[in-house]
């Protein structure tokens, strides 16, 4: 790069940063430098997390050469987090897949699209003919665009006639969904990111926001810098950068979040801190089954039996959860529990709760989501600007695609379910398919789907935009299952070779992000659209095309009679949510804006749901109305959910808790970030975070290799006693990005019986010097 070009770019970088910081450029002479006429800029949501930041993508000569935070994006106002660096090379790793590959013996051999799709179609037909439609399956992703998820759902449910469609969001957000559905009868938050600017009290539960949702965390920090009254409380099992920056770090023993939230509710009731008027008007109380199991057996089934209870019965249920008792369970001092309860209930404060995987990847994930809503409902601290519980989303379109389109075995778009005949009839009408085509019974959640593949009940599975053979818990079983032969056939669509493509019979090269037109939906119900800005490499094609091509070859091309598929799919899809409180705007509106928060009615987005004056579905005079919960007279549900232990707890043989999660420098299984040699060196391989006292006791030094073993698998890793994250005593933490170190082989495939979401945060391991 020539000196003058470098100076110019430095000036551009500075100018963009000044603009984002809200200040005029200090050196006016360089102001023009901000406008590099060689680069064409187009908007897109960031490829990575559920925050959904706006990015401007700079293209020159058909290649992305620059990115900047989109100043017009309300989510992030011109500033991205460290993952913005990752965008630079997601698409340009050297081993990008460019041609279809078919397994022939031990080798993957290049093939034409015609040959690959022909083979795939023949395998689908063969399996369906011999074993029925439930012998084929699709496993997609919260990183699918809305179009891709919709097309997959339409093909499988409406064309092939099977409910065998699941997504990796079963592994991340399913418990959040069932929490919403059982408490409010409608998925997704009532609040939005504006609550981070308007609130003054933020309880974080098992969520390392500083590393996993940095832009949202920055909004809280910005708020605190302007308003010294702001308090951030980090309830966590591990000390992280978030804990460092919080006002209080409250460590608790794994799984005892259930007990802690009940104890907080206990104190709120004991000390008469609840909002009696709010409860009377907006709340019913219910109890469900207890001792509900852990989904460890194949074909595990569970159905709850909710019963209405009274406020007094609920109070009675909470009696055991005294601060003193819960101190013994959780390790949180009784005094702190009381203090936190009073902070939650403080009438002078605007209180918010935020959480992600600590609550969701939990064998009682639905319950713990219910319990955090309980605290907000008892105190009436909900449905107010600046005061809401906010379930954070991990993936960029777990909301927009998997939850809103409904790409789960039991789902249809707009919160509808296959079990409901009216919902099926509506879908059949919009899709123009015969009545009775969509099966009425759900089949498998994600874990059960891969168990079925292992058993041979599923023969053909197509995986798109996700890496299950690295990310599933109890991984060995499912990796082995995929290669058992006997008619099993695995197709994987991705952009790079992964631990899943290596087990595939056919690999299809996909387009990614701005190599295709797309729509994502983020954690605050904001739907964003983007246009294609560069071509995918080689012969790679977008996943929507791939799905429609299979449909055509299976005789279901009539389901996709589109000339401009993206727009026409959108207009067809939004019929489902129209008038249902899930309204979406016409496609053009998203092309023009930096996203709109649904319900969008008469062109106006909704910031706060269920609230008069903000939600168009709540009439004047109605105040707050949980209008999706008709059976409970439009009230929300406070659930009596007990503490129950984790599926597997430390014992003499396996005395440590193992928790898994993400690190800042790598996105999930590292398929995109691991491709970039430079990024890989920054955090090149997984380590085991351990407490120094535990290490000393076992005679282990920093960076020394240890063997970590569970009942399911074993791995050797170096120990890190001084990392950014610090494990508590009796706990270790390992990230799951490293494709050379498959930590998920150790994890237990226990799941929340209500949501089907596995618990990646708790299993028992032992540690020895390697």
């Amino acid at each position: 790069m020539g000196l003058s070009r470098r100076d110019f770019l430095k000036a551009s970088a500075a100018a963009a940063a000044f603009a984002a910081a809200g200040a005029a450029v200090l050196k006016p002479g360089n102001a023009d430098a901000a406008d590099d006429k060689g680069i064409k800029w187009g908007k897109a949501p960031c490829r990575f997390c559920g925050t959904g930041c706006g990015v401007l993508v700079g293209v020159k000569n058909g290649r992305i050469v620059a990115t900047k935070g989109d100043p017009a994006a309300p989510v992030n106002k011109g500033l991205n987090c460290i993952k913005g660096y990752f965008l630079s090379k997601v698409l340009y790793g050297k081993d990008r897949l460019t041609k279809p590959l078919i397994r022939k013996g031990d080798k993957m051999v290049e093939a034409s699209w015609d040959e690959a799709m022909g083979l795939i179609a023949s395998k689908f037909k063969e399996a369906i003919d011999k074993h029925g439609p439930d012998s084929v399956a699709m496993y997609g992703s919260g990183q699918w665009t809305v179009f891709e998820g919709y097309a997959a759902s339409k093909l499988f449910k409406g064309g092939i006639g099977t409910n065998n469609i699941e997504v990796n969001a079963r592994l991340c957000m399913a418990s959040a969904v069932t929490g919403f559905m059982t408490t409010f009868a409608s998925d997704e938050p009532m609040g939005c990111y504006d609550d981070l600017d308007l609130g003054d009290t933020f309880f974080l539960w098992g969520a390392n926001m500083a590393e996993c949702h940095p832009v949202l965390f920055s909004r809280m920090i910005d708020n605190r810098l302007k308003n010294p009254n702001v308090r951030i409380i980090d309830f966590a099992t591990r000390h992280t950068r978030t804990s460092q920056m919080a006002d209080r770090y409250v460590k608790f023993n794994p799984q005892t979040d259930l007990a802690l939230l009940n104890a907080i509710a206990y104190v709120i009731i004991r000390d008469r801190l609840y909002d009696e008027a709010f409860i009377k008007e907006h709340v019913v109380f219910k109890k469900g089954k207890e001792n509900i199991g852990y989904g460890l057996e194949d074909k595990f089934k569970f159905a709850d039996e909710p019963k209405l209870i009274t406020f007094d019965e609920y109070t009675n249920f909470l009696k055991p959860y005294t601060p003193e008792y819960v101190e013994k369970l959780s390790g949180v001092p009784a005094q702190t529990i009381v203090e936190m309860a009073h902070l939650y209930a403080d009438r002078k404060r605007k209180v918010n709760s935020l959480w992600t995987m600590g609550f969701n990847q939990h064998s009682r994930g639905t319950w713990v989501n219910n319990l955090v809503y309980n605290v907000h409902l008892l105190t009436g601290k909900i449905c107010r600007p600046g005061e809401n519980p906010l379930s954070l989303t991990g993936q960029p379109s777990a909301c927009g695609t998997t939850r809103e389109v409904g790409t789960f075995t039991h789902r249809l778009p707009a919160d509808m379910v296959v079990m409901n005949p009216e919902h099926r009839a509506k879908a059949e009408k919009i899709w123009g398919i015969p009545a009775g085509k969509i099966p009425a019974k759900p089949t498998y959640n994600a874990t059960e789907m891969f168990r079925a593949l292992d058993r041979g009940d599923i023969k053909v599975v197509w995986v798109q935009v996700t890496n299950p053979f690295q990310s599933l818990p109890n991984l060995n079983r499912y990796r082995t299952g995929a290669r058992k032969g006997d008619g099993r056939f695995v197709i994987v669509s991705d952009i790079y070779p992964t631990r899943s493509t290596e087990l595939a019979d056919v690999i299809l090269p996909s387009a990614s992000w701005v190599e295709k037109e797309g729509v994502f939906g983020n954690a605050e119900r904001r739907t964003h659209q983007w246009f294609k800005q560069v071509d995918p490499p080689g012969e790679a094609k977008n996943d929507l095309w791939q799905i429609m091509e299979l449909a055509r070859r299976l005789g279901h091309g009539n389901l996709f009679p589109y000339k401009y598929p993206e727009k026409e799919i959108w207009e067809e899809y939004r019929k489902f949510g129209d008038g249902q409180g899930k309204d979406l705007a016409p496609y053009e509106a998203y092309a023009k804006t930096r996203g709109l928060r649904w319900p969008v009615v008469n062109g106006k987005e909704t910031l706060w749901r269920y609230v008069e004056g903000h939600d168009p579905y709540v009439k004047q005079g109605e105040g707050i109305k949980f209008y999706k919960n008709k059976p409970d007279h439009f009230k929300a549900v406070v659930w009596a959910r007990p503490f129950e232990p984790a599926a597997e707890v430390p014992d003499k043989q396996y005395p440590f808790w193992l928790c898994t999660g993400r690190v800042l420098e790598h996105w999930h299984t590292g398929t995109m970030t691991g491709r970039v040699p430079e990024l890989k060196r920054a955090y090149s391989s997984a380590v085991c975070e351990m407490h120094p006292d535990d290490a000393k006791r076992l005679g282990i030094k920093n960076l020394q290799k240890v063997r970590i073993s569970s009942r399911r698998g074993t791995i050797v890793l170096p120990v890190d006693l001084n990392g950014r994250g610090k494990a508590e005593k009796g706990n270790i933490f390992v990230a799951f990005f490293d494709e050379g170190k498959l930590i998920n082989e150790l994890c237990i495939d226990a799941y929340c019986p209500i949501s089907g979401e596995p618990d990646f945060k708790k299993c028992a391991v032992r540690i020895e010097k390697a």
Partner: protein
Amino acid sequence: MPISGIVVTCGTGDADAVASRIGTMDGIEVQGVVPGDRIVAVIESDSVDGEVALFSRLHEVDGVQTVRLAYHNFEDME
């Protein structure tokens, strides 16, 4: 050689002191301190890895609250 523009937010009243600390880090050039205790800086490195490492290290500098990325140019990366 990739180049990025960043905004560093500091604790109240700290910005000038933090700017001095940051200014001594190789690869980081402070462009100015703006109202709201924010520092604008440019990062230059041989690689994206280098930029990410510098960006990450900034979080450990005394007085830094948040670090965010405004602009990233990588036009000469292979």
